[in-house]
């Protein structure tokens, strides 16, 4: 009998198995079990059990805090300042932290005695004093405390105690902020700049003091019960002390609005967290002084689908959701394709502007080279799918899956597909797989499930890494992001997110963004991502739309034929007095940007058409209001210019209305090439224009009505319908008929 036999209940077995022994002890123990099969078996099993425990424990969730549902109404007028970052939340944060006075004895959570130094708002603090400077925080009586009861008071007290722990740096800021912040006894006015002025300092302070926890508190005076705001730390597995206020606010917003996912269709000022960037309609510009109009092309179609979604719900779309260029560009037009080596051809047309007699309407169209499915280069695709909890609804993840299935069906055997997901964690649901193994890919799509919160940034890193790892030189390398845009963990500051995408775009992997859902749909964010990511952006509200974006226009979605495409139009002052670019407000470029290859612009996909409309005031027609006259220049010799104009007219160029210049780069290139197309106005009336022209004009007019544009002129939904009907033409795909349906719906609803 081995005197050194190790018995199964010897704890050293486990210590050894788990690598807890020091060198000497370990070799001694190894000798002891050298011939002992039972002991060795036990060691193996202990290690296996250990791995199983690790796996299981890794799936255990970090506690996520449930926020009571809130019903606060957000005044949509402040969308202007809000976009994706609710400034009012920061104002509240500031108020809670610094401007509210706290009675120390009410803290139930007094775990340790702390030195309380009352700080006067505005008091100057000397540098380097010992002791934490605490801001006195007063517990405000909760208006609806009856419902929550003592529990709420307790949590409030804890919250106040928490916010009272401020380190020196932020306390210094706090004192300054306290001086500026509004006292909550006044009605809380979101529009005051007082909140704005607090922002900067409060932001830093909130960042320094750790996850800012704000509990429900009442602002006395206007009886608004503010929803409980809470930044749930670490729910994405990343610390947020360093991310501070933006994340706290954005996440808090997410938590508030989770219960309010459905859009109430009746009120225009809805309580939802959709975010649209504000854009002022382009005004008329005098040619004198603005001879050049420069902008980046845009093939995104999301705004049209989004507007359609609103109309289907009998709801008027928010003005800023209506990007006219995306409405017009949603429809395919019959422009002639390019001949030869150039990636696109231009199609220019000019006729009367139907909503303003006397004005001319110029239609600039670009048509991208078609690339057949068989002829296109091999594709390396990474689907990056948001599987966070908010994607659970029927019009989101299930629709995403359907859309992707459709796309996969269209792929060739030499294409590759990977699926990355992001939610509480990010992961690879399917490593890069040849499209020949379709069943595997479809199975992986089927298994996608929603749950958790969103760590968009980690997902983006993963997706691009996978795309780069499987990079096809000369092929199509693309990340296809499917989301409702609600990134609320990790990188949530829009600046950080866009910078991340810009950086990723430099790798040669392009990005398509597919937006889904409503209620917390982040239109502005998604558009910007696609913009910075060298990609296109579509909104998928129905299976039909999925088919359009991913099957019919798969070529366009997948294959980029030209990037950084910019347009610069030079107007001839002898013919044109003033002009107005319809739409493209957030695509405008400075005139110097046209020849600057470092300036990013839009991409054209295979078979894509791009349409831009200018409303032009010819010479001899009364000028609309265009803003002030510009003083004649003192130091420029004007005789020279008159001379040049005379010269040009002698060369017969004075009848040209304008010249369109287009700059573009090859998809993998860095140096741009230029094309020029002059246009002479033949004086055609609107009735004589082509069907495509009339239809585009109708859509633009529709957009202007929805935007309540000051320049919409003489139009209403009935007129739009008339013009559109004249332009329906062949209508492959039925999209134009669908548009007519939308117009009829709008007319019935708002009878303009």
């Amino acid at each position, binding site marked *: 009998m081995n005197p050194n036999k190790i018995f199964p209940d010897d*704890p050293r077995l486990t210590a050894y198995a788990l690598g807890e022994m020091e060198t000497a002890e370990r070799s001694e123990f190894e000798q002891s079990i050298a011939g002992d099969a039972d002991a060795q078996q036990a060691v193996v099993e202990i290690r296996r059990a250990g791995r199983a*425990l690790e796996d299981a424990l890794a799936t255990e969730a970090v506690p996520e805090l449930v926020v009571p549902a809130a019903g606060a109404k957000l005044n949509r007028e402040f969308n202007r300042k809000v976009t994706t970052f609710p400034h009012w939340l920061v104002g509240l944060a500031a108020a809670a932290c610094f401007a509210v006075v706290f009675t120390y004895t009410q803290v139930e959570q007094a*775990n340790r005695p702390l030195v309380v130094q009352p700080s006067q708002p505005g008091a100057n603090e000397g540098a380097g004093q010992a002791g934490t400077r605490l801001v006195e925080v007063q517990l405000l009586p909760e208006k609806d405390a009856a419902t929550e009861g003592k529990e709420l008071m307790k949590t409030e007290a804890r919250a106040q105690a928490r916010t009272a722990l401020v380190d020196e740096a932020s306390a210094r800021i706090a004192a300054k902020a306290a001086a500026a912040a509004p006292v909550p006894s006044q009605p809380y006015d979101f529009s005051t700049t007082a909140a704005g002025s607090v922002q900067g300092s409060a932001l830093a302070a909130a960042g320094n003091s750790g996850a800012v926890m704000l509990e429900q508190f009442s602002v006395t005076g206007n009886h608004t019960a503010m929803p409980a705001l809470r930044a749930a730390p670490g729910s994405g597995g990343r610390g947020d002390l360093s991310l501070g206020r933006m994340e706290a606010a954005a996440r808090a917003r997410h938590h508030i609005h989770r219960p309010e996912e459905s859009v109430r269709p009746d009120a225009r000022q809805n309580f939802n967290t959709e975010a649209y960037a504000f854009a002022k309609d382009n005004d008329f510009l005098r040619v004198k002084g603005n001879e050049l109009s420069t902008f980046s092309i845009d093939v995104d179609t999301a705004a049209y689908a989004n507007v359609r979604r609103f109309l289907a719900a009998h709801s008027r779309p928010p003005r800023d959701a209506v990007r006219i260029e995306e409405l017009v560009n949603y429809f395919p037009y019959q422009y002639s394709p390019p001949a030869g080596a150039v990636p696109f051809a231009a199609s220019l047309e000019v006729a009367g502007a139907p909503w303003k007699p006397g004005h001319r309407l110029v239609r600039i169209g670009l048509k991208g080279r078609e690339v057949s499915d068989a002829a296109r280069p091999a594709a390396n695709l990474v689907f990056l799918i948001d599987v966070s909890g908010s994607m659970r609804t029927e019009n989101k993840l299930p629709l995403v899956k359907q859309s992707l299935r459709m796309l996969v069906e269209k792929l060739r055997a030499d294409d590759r597909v990977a699926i990355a997901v992001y939610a509480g964690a990010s992961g690879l649901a399917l490593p890069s797989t040849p499209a020949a193994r379709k069943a595997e890919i479809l199975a992986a799509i089927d298994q996608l499930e929603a749950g958790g919160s969103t760590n968009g940034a980690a997902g983006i890193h993963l997706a691009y890494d996978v795309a780069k790892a499987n990079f096809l030189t000369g092929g199509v390398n693309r990340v296809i992001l499917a989301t409702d845009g609600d990134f609320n963990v990790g990188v949530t500051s829009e600046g950080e997110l866009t910078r991340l995408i810009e950086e990723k775009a430099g790798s040669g992997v392009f990005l398509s963004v597919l937006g889904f859902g409503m209620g917390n749909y982040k239109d502005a964010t998604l558009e910007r991502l696609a913009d910075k990511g060298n990609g296109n952006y579509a909104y998928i509200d129905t299976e039909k739309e999925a088919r359009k974006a991913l099957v019919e226009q798969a070529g366009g979605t997948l294959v980029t034929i030209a990037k950084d495409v910019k347009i610069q139009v030079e107007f001839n002052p002898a013919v044109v007095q003033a002009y107005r670019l319809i739409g493209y407000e957030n695509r405008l470029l400075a005139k110097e940007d046209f020849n600057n290859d470092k300036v990013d612009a839009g991409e054209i996909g295979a078979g894509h058409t791009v349409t831009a409309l200018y409303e032009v005031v010819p010479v001899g027609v009364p000028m609309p209001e265009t803003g002030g006259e510009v003083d004649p220049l003192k130091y420029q010799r004007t005789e020279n210019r008159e001379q040049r104009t005379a010269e040009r007219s002698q060369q017969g160029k004075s009848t040209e209305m304008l010249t369109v210049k287009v700059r573009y780069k090859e998809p993998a290139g860095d140096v741009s090439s230029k094309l020029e197309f002059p246009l002479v106005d033949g004086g055609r009336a609107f009735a004589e224009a082509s069907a495509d022209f009339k239809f585009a004009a109708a859509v633009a007019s529709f957009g202007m009505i929805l935007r309540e544009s000051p320049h919409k002129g003489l139009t209403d939904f009935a007129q739009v319908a008339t013009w559109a009907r004249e332009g329906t033409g062949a209508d492959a795909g039925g999209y134009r008929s669908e548009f007519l349906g939308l117009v009829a719906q709008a007319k019935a609803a708002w009878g303009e």
Partner: protein
Amino acid sequence: MNHPTHISPPSHDNAALVQDAVARHQAPLLRYAARLLGGDADLAQDVVQDTFVRLMAQPPAQVDGHVAEWLYTVCRNRALDVLRKEGRVRRFEEGQVERLTAAGPLPGRSIERAEQQASVLRLIDRLPPNQQEVIRLKFQSGFSYKEISRITSLSVGNVGFLIHTAVNRLRREMAAMPE
């Protein structure tokens, strides 16, 4: 337990250390604290925040190299303080720990694997709380016996014994689980 009478202002080198610590350890600490506090996520938040505030006050030299262990130790002590104060220490020892809802299965995993893991978690939950704690510190937070010993103030031998007993039991129970 020494209660500091005041918290000194953080030094500059500390900031990076603290930020890193938060990024790495905030979530697991929350999990750990919530366990100790009987599932009270709200309270756990307090305790964890408190822990980090104390970290801010530490001269970096003192914690460098064993930040995690330091955090867990402080967190544990804070949690016990809280429980003692609120008269809930007994709850911690009773073993009736509230089950935290787990997130859905991670993407790509099959249903069976997720179910298996859920079963394992249930088995862990049935362990006596002192065994549970060391099991989690070892297999969830990745601490060594020595570190666990320092965190929990148990001897290394004691820790080894608890883990051995728990693993043995779990091994048997997992083997008995339907595949």
